[in-house]
């Protein structure tokens, strides 16, 4: 049965179902229970872990502010039989524990010749829009995508968030799970029963014939608005959400570009060495014959995220910029 759920609750439901299914699934992070060590009632669980403590008291813990230790501990625990879901809170805090992610989690299996695996999930809030300033708003998924050994998931809808979280927990590799903070209260139809969405399988959000728009995370919604607007001008856009950027469903992207002859990539991260630049180069390399216009990237500028609402609103890409990018590639197109 499906019902309407928020992105946040969809993630919480996946966590609960997986904790019930498998006692090796343990969840921890700062304030994941919230209020531990006080005489008061349970406090503010940050995010979707609210209530999990009552159901699974042995599988969820609060952690001190010790990311290097608890993310590293997740690696060790994962390599020895548990399936930890560790909560970084904001992805920006990866900065204080990056060795554990980069050198330990991502490298362990390779270095021991496949004799161990690291089935952990690292939850990470990301993205601009909440007026949190430069240290709480980054779109860091390209950095993790760059690292072999890590899987990187960027869900854009509640239903995807649930299915991808389920897959992430069952997956035997380290997965960094990017939750856009501005999507937390977005709502959508989510099946009640447990289900997996395979990694590396893009979702065609909307079909079209004139231009392919590949959009990531919160940008999927912006791309849909842009496509709607362009449709009124008689332009038909296909919108593709890769859902996971590592692995990346290149085949779906190539197939779409082969049909439409044009590509606009929308990525909230900074433009250099980004997922946008990666997809753009892959498409240029592999579907050159099909291209009828220059590939366009729509990204945030090469700058940190500003605090001021006036500046932040101008920071992340919006549907207007996507419309312009589509028009740019269509207008400069060569005849078919």
């Amino acid at each position, binding site marked *: 049965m499906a019902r309407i759920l928020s992105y946040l609750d969809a993630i919480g439901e996946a966590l609960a179902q997986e904790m019930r299914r498998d006692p090796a699934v343990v969840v921890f992070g700062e304030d994941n229970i919230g209020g531990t060590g*006080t005489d008061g009632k349970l406090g503010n669980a940050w995010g979707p872990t609210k209530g999990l403590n009552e159901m699974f008291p042995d599988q969820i813990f609060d952690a001190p502010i010790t990311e290097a230790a608890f993310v590293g501990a997740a690696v060790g625990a994962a390599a020895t039989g548990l399936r930890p879901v560790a909560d970084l809170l904001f992805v920006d805090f990866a900065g204080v524990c990056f060795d554990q992610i980069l050198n330990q989690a991502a490298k362990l299996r390779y270095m021991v010749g496949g004799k161990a695996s690291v089935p952990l999930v690292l939850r990470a809030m990301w993205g601009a829009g909440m007026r949190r300033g430069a240290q709480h708003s980054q779109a860091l998924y390209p950095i993790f995508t760059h690292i072999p050994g890590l899987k990187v998931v960027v869900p854009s809808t509640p239903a995807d968030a649930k299915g991808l979280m389920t897959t992430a927990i069952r997956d035997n590799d380290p997965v960094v799970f990017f939750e856009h903070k501005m999507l937390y209260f977005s709502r959508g139809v989510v099946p009640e029963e447990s289900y997996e969405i395979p990694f590396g399988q893009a979702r065609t959000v909307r079909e079209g014939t004139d231009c392919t728009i590949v959009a990531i995370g919160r940008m999927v919604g912006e791309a849909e608005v842009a496509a709607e607007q362009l449709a009124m001008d008689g332009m038909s856009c296909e919108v593709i959400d890769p859902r996971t950027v590592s692995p990346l469903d290149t085949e779906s992207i190539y197939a779409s570009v082969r049909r439409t002859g044009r590509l606009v990539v929308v990525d909230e991260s900074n433009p250099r060495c980004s997922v946008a630049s990666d997809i753009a180069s892959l498409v240029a390399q592999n579907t050159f014959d099909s291209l009828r216009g220059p590939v366009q990237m729509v990204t945030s500028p090469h700058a940190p995220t500003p605090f001021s609402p006036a500046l932040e609103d101008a920071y992340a890409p919006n549907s207007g910029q996507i419309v312009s990018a589509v028009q740019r590639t269509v207008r400069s197109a060569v005849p078919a």
Partner: protein
Amino acid sequence: MTMNSLATALTPDGLIEIYRVMRTIREFEDRVHVEFTGRDIPGAVHLYAGQEAVAAGVCSVLSDDDYIASTHRGHGHAVAKGCDVTGMMLELYGKAGGLCGGKGGSMHIADFDRGMLGANGVAAGGVPLAAGAALSAKVRGTDQVSVAFVGDGGANQGAFAESLTLAAVWQLPVVFVVEDNGFAQATGTRFHLAGKRVALRGEAVGIPSQVVDGYDVFAVRDAAVEAVERARSGDGPTLLECKADRFYGHMEGWDQQAYRLTSEIDELRSARDCLVLFTERVLAEGSVTADELAGVDATVRARVAAAVEEARSAKDPDISELLTDVYVSY
């Protein structure tokens, strides 16, 4: 009650000045609480009310060119280090003319002209920076001192432990001020603090360390005088663990303090308000008059109110600012 040697050593003007700093922080925070509730102030705001005596006591022994590095709960430290209240308020509103041009906001408020190296969005992120400022002072041969403020929660970070070691090994002129307000977000110190006191971690690497009553500005000041003196004379770092709970939740608009009993907060506000404790004491000693303190209250209230008015009507930063300050040269 035995009289504190330094409390008596402070001139009436000095006492008024300390009171002015504490009152300004309280007024700033209470006013921000109200303005935030009206949703006029954007973003994440962490209020310092309740902990004023720590910032005021420590910064009262620093000079303008000493350094401090602060936490995400940084307004109090900024005020105590002499940052302009209007510039701060403009920054909280994200307006042009804010201390950081609207780019930083509450969590990143800074003023290098005042030796305020910045609030910090990362727990303990500022601690190594303070150690670095101390190194800078030492290498440049000045007698500047650097203070690292950090929460009890942040004190669990690797960066904190490593900074203690580095400061001890390099004998840096730095004072680590750990503010234990009982919580890291909703998680209690009682749970997350392994070992009895953070001060023991300082002692473990040979840093003189002390637990201080953070509600008592005189006690804080006494401890700070000794620590800053030690740093200035080249005798290395000190750790002060100051205990003072916050009055408000972890973060405005997010935290209803469900993890705390209402009675706890009431007790805190009625019996352990640093401003009340200060007032009772100085009036009993006859060092300043109630009228003088009331005069400070009025001036401070007007000043903060004017700052809010100015911030509300100030201009937004120009969109072109999005691309400035990323690099020094492009």
